[in-house]
């Protein structure tokens, strides 16, 4: 039997909370010691989730959804 998983997959991705863009950490230090105090952007395990395909898909979906909502709002306003 051919099944259509579309509705379940869409509902699962759509139910995810909003993914916000992470702000780059800035040390804000200056002077001779600044190179030592500067936080390096070393790859961490926390960043690895952002490379997951499902995470990328959720991000793209949320971006399109946002655009769609804006179009909807504009239409409602006019």
């Amino acid at each position, binding site marked *: *039997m*051919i099944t*259509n*998983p*579309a*509705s*379940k*997959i*869409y*509902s699962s*991705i*759509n*139910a995810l909370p909003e993914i916000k863009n992470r702000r780059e950490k800035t040390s804000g230090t200056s002077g001779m010691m600044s190179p030592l105090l500067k936080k390096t952007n070393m790859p961490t395990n926390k960043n690895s989730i952002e490379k997951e*395909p*499902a995470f*990328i*898909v*959720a991000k*793209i*979906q949320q971006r*399109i*959804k946002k*655009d*769609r909502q804006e*179009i*909807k709002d504009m*239409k409602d306003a006019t």
Partner: protein
Amino acid sequence: MQPNEQSFDRPIPGMSLTHELGARPWQQPADITNVDDAAEYYITQIADDTFAKNLIHTMKMGVPLTTIANSLQLAGVMEGKHSVDVGILMIPVIMETMMLIGDAAGVDYDTGLADNKELDQNVVTTATIGKLLQSEADNKDMMEPVQEQSVQEVQDEPVIENTGLMSRRT
């Protein structure tokens, strides 16, 4: 389809062996291997004027978006554009893009998600918690008689009298 209904919509045994291995597009390495490129491919394809016009027409006919999205990604797999897993992951992106086109055109479309209303997260959570509590209560009921029985067995154990030659007399 009814559960007892016979389905003839399935591959014939040996159907996959009617061609040389690698002769079909889906048996070749996929053109697109990551979701970023796949999303770009589908968004570009859907945003095309001709496609969008046909899509709006299809939406007006009442075809659910889930069906269109699934057909699109399946066609991509069959053409060897991407693998099955990338195709499955593309479904939300395809659906959302189609909804955007539908909203922009002011079409009243069917998402095909109506059946999933029952699977509301709160309902699922409540059901899961209820089930857990029930199983915990069942476990308690099962445990209590076993404990009582074991205590009773210890109490009823017959006292064996020492009858040997070397046994200590009391």
